[in-house]
């Protein structure tokens, strides 16, 4: 059963990690996944991986903070497929540090990629979706945006900002049948968390009622639901995939 037959889904920051799992999940459910990430080689490899499984993907190397690049890529996709049904704003970075020692650059770059990048991609895609009177936007936030975290003030602010931005865009676009939701993943096993020491992992998992880290697939499963018509009455929400970490 293909929930997303003939849909075109753009996923930013999707050459690896959670983004790639989402791109893979949507493609295996019938969508054409458009992989956008910084590095051309990584993009090509990700596209190849999906292609090898017999599903559809195309890729572009781009930076979500580059308005011109994003505008021209979205236009190219729209012209080729005559639709852009789904946008997943997933691209994100961390530059951790205590507030007292945080450099302005570390603040700016995290807010720029995570929050402003989400704004730019949403602004550039909404025109096409409004024209079609349909579309789904999904923003990948984080539980850190809900609960805060010492040493991640910039990241927390960007993710909290994404949640508020999700609500505003859901209200602005609702009359055009465009739904906007956010997912707030908790501690998810990715390349990023692989390097953590066992002690740190143990500390994290002790706080999680389900007593384990989540997988990228856990996030991708919720993604698939939220972008599909099964979720057609859900908009403006932030849904956690966190093993019960915060309730």
């Amino acid at each position, binding site marked *: 059963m293909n929930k997303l037959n003939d849909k075109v889904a753009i996923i930013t920051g999707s050459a690896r990690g959670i983004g790639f799992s989402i791109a893979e999940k949507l493609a295996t459910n019938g969508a054409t996944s458009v992989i956008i990430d910084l590095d051309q080689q990584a993009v090509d490899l990700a596209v190849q991986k999906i292609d090898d499984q017999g599903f559809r993907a195309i890729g572009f190397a781009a930076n979500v903070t580059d308005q011109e690049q994003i505008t021209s890529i979205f236009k190219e996709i729209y012209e080729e497929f005559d639709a852009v049904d789904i946008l997943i704003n997933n691209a994100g970075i961390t530059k951790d540090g205590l507030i007292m020692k945080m450099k302005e650059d570390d603040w700016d770059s995290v807010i720029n990629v995570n929050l402003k990048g989400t704004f730019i991609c949403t602004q550039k895609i909404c025109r096409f979706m*409004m024209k079609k009177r349909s579309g789904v936007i999904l923003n990948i936030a984080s539980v850190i945006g809900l609960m805060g975290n010492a040493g991640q003030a910039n990241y927390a602010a960007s993710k909290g900002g994404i949640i508020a931005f999700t609500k505003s865009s859901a209200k602005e676009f609702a*009359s*055009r049948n465009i739904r906007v939701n956010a997912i707030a993943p908790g501690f998810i096993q990715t390349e990023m968390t692989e390097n953590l020491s066992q002690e740190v992992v143990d500390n994290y998992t002790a706080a999680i009622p389900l007593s384990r880290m989540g997988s990228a697939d856990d996030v991708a499963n919720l993604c698939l639901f939220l972008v599909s018509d099964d979720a057609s009455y859900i908009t403006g929400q932030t849904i956690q995939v966190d093993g019960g970490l915060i309730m």
Partner: protein
Amino acid sequence: MDIKSKVTEIIVEELGVEESEVILDASFIEDLGADSLDTVELIMKFEEEFDIDINDEEAEKLTTVGKAIEYLEKKLK
């Protein structure tokens, strides 16, 4: 195609109204049923079709069909 016909065509397409309703005095919001998003879309469509930039201040004044045509005719002269 002259500006007036082009503008009328764009309005008919964007707002889904009958050509007969698109008279000079018609207000986009009050008479042609546009909401605030429609008016933004309309301005963007004018910009695209006529290859011009309309700043926000000017855009706010274009509340009727007549005002839009008059503005575009002046701008494109």
